[in-house]
């Protein structure tokens, strides 16, 4: 259809971002002034005698301080896990292990509100997401793997699934509680014990989970949660008493871990970075595709390893899609993560904000055309306007490297083969998305796109029953679903 010659046609959305404040009450969440290390079922003072502060990225306010575990603390935690494994956990029946997991799942549900508030405070994500996604999905993972605990013989017919032993688990700051659930639930279901290290910027919900685990009466030492930065993680990876490393985080650190465990009997699963291609064909339901793209890149401020950060739009609908994206961007509310109306919260840390800003500068320098929403940003804290780049080429760094922020690089394409080639032309291969009304096209693409997940006419959908993981530099091993059990057992 012809497009209008009248360039002044523009919708106005100034009022769409101006709702009266509707903040979730902070008083529903109890945060201690200081947290120790959760080892052997108790909160214990660190041998390092050191603590570090943790802040709210939306206000830079100090929320609490947590212990900084050194190598001696890590050793203590691993030994506690080993002892619990040998003396108790590996001998327990699957049904009994399942009971504990069900109990944890129910307690996560009971404390959902408090967990959601702390997640938003400590991580910066909007309460709408922590309330409706992070916490319920975390509970679902515990429920799902609780169900497998006494059914492993059906998961692996004619084989015997034995636990690996002690799992060292290192998780990132983008989904602190959910990643803890992803890691802990399958490990316990299969009979392993755990030492988990949350990210240094977002330790609080993992420590809340430690309180839940304590209250659930899980045998001491089955789950140990220790806080610290890179050095703590390195000590855990290099500890000879650890049988398995499960890591989610950057490709750079993933490579260091792989190097460190080379030549040891340690098993590993690595869930690393991504630069997902989201592909819109001209026969797609455009408004729903646009919504999916928005959800794909701005969910959790773009701090998502499977974020749809590369958008490919078929040239015949390119202008229309960009127009729709810009209109949608204008209605997104950026601000206080605890406000129920917030769509985009705070960037997780100053360091990450600097990285994002660096890439925005690179994009401009590379000649890409920038569009940012006119949303006003709060004065304190770390913020980034949702950002689109058009006039992007495959050879631009903003189209190649993971930015891990609310920045979308948009390119056009002409034919199916061309877009398949471009989508696969990335060192990463975690996820991708296809938008078309034609079923045959979906199947053609899903067989040719080299990524762990391909979403069709939707994006960023997660379920505990569905495996998740990457190709190439996005890592190896699968988490979630039946496949997720595999990573924590040896089959005899």
């Amino acid at each position, binding site marked *: 259809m012809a497009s*209008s010659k009248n360039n002044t046609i523009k919708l106005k*959305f100034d009022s769409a971002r101006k709702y009266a404040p509707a903040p979730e009450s902070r008083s529903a969440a109890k945060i201690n002034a200081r947290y120790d290390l959760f080892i052997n079922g108790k909160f214990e003072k660190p041998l390092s005698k050191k603590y570090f502060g943790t802040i709210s990225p939306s206000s830079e306010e100090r929320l609490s301080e947590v212990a900084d575990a050194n190598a001696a603390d890590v050793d203590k935690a691993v030994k506690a896990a080993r002892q619990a494994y040998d003396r108790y956990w590996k001998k327990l029946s699957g049904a009994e292990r399942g009971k504990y997991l069900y109990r944890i799942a129910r307690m996560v549900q009971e404390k959902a509100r408090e967990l959601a508030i702390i997640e938003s405070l400590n991580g910066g994500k909007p309460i709408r997401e922590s309330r409706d996604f992070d916490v319920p999905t975390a509970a679902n993972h515990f429920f799902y793997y609780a169900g497998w605990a006494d059914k492993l013989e059906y998961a692996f017919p004619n084989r015997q699934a034995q636990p690996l032993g002690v799992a060292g688990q290192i998780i990132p700051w983008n989904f602190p509680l959910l990643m803890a659930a992803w890691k802990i639930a399958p490990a316990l279901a299969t009979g392993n014990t755990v030492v988990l290290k949350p990210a240094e910027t977002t330790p609080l919900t993992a420590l809340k989970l430690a309180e839940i685990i304590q209250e659930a009466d899980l045998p001491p030492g089955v789950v140990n949660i220790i806080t610290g930065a890179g050095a703590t993680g390195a000590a855990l990876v290099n500890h000879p008493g650890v049988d398995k490393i499960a890591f989610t985080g950057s490709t750079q650190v993933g490579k260091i871990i792989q190097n460190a465990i080379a030549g040891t009997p340690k098993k590993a699963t690595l869930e690393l970075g991504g630069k997902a291609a989201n592909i819109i064909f001209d026969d797609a339901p455009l408004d729903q595709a646009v919504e999916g793209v928005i959800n794909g890149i701005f969910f959790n401020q773009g701090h998502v390893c499977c974020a749809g950060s590369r958008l490919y739009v078929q040239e015949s609908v390119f202008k229309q899609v960009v127009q729709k994206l810009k209109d949608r961007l204008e209605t997104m509310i950026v601000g206080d993560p605890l406000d*129920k109306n917030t769509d985009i919260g705070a960037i997780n840390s100053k360091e990450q904000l600097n990285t994002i800003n660096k890439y925005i500068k690179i994009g401009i320098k590379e000649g890409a055309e920038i569009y940012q929403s006119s949303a006003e940003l709060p004065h304190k804290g770390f913020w980034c306007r949702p950002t689109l780049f058009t006039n992007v080429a495959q050879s631009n760094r903003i189209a190649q490297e993971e930015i891990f922020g609310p920045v979308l690089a948009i390119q056009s394409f002409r034919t199916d083969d061309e877009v398949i080639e471009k989508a696969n032309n990335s060192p990463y291969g975690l996820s991708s998305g296809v938008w078309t009304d034609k079923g045959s096209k979906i199947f053609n693409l899903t067989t040719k796109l080299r990524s762990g997940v391909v979403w069709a006419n939707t994006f960023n959908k997660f379920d505990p029953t569905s495996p998740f993981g990457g190709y190439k530099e996005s890592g190896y091993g699968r988490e979630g679903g039946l496949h997720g059990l595999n990573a924590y057992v040896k089959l005899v």
Partner: protein
Amino acid sequence: MVEKNLAYFPDFSVSPRIDQVGIEERAARFTKRSIKKETKLNGLLLTLNMIDLTTLEGKDTVGKVQQMCYKAKHLHDAYEGLPTVAAVCVYPTMVSVAKKAVAGSGVKVASVATAFPSGQAPRDVKIRDTKYAVAEGADEIDMVISRGKFLEGEYNFVFDEIAAIKEACGSARLKVILETGELVTYDKVRRASDIAMYAGADFIKTSTGKISPAATMPVTLVMLEAIRDFYYKTGRRIAMKPAGGISKSKLALHYLVMLNEILGEAWMNNEWFRFGASSLANDVLMQIMKEKTGVYQGKDYFSLD
């Protein structure tokens, strides 16, 4: 101006497709907005001002219509400064009664026409029905499309009929009722919306209120997106009227959030958006009084005309 922009004739069989899961998820997202305090009060007052207060029954009488028209002008005099509703909506035979009853108040008179609600009548009857209502003084005409013809794929028939009724309307604004509950799929709602707008509709409207389901948020969203695409293509604004099934103020506020975030503030008035509803007004009044006094009042404190 319209003719100039519509120099080409679109192929309605290729109207954009709608993904059911996606549109329903998007519609649900608007209900997550938390509307409080002054935003809520402003929204409620605006809702009142957007209502087409309606009585469309076989048993309608002069007395009944007069009473409703009084309510249209005086929603709840215990609260000073309330707006009136946008319009009253009646059958053609009641237009002159309503016209007299709301004279001077700014409240418009809308009349259903074209063999409402089924639309199963010859075109000349529909045109006479429309002309009669206009001659009686109707400011707005609410027509129904021929759903049978639409489902047969006779899009040109539907298009021509709307264009003919538009001509019969003269200066009265034309609302085109798609009766989405009989079209069933979102794809068809979108196609019917496109046909109506290109054929000259001033408003597109979901339902007669006689068929269930009537207005829903996803259906209204499909229509709002059609209006937006049409606006970008032609520069012409089309108004929207969801009708039937909206009886609670909370739901009405969700609709306003959706309108505000799809079409923007230019549509946030009763020239461009209406609620077709009869029981919505009292629920809104109850909420407004609660905002003012801090307590809920029983429903017997609000008049039932």
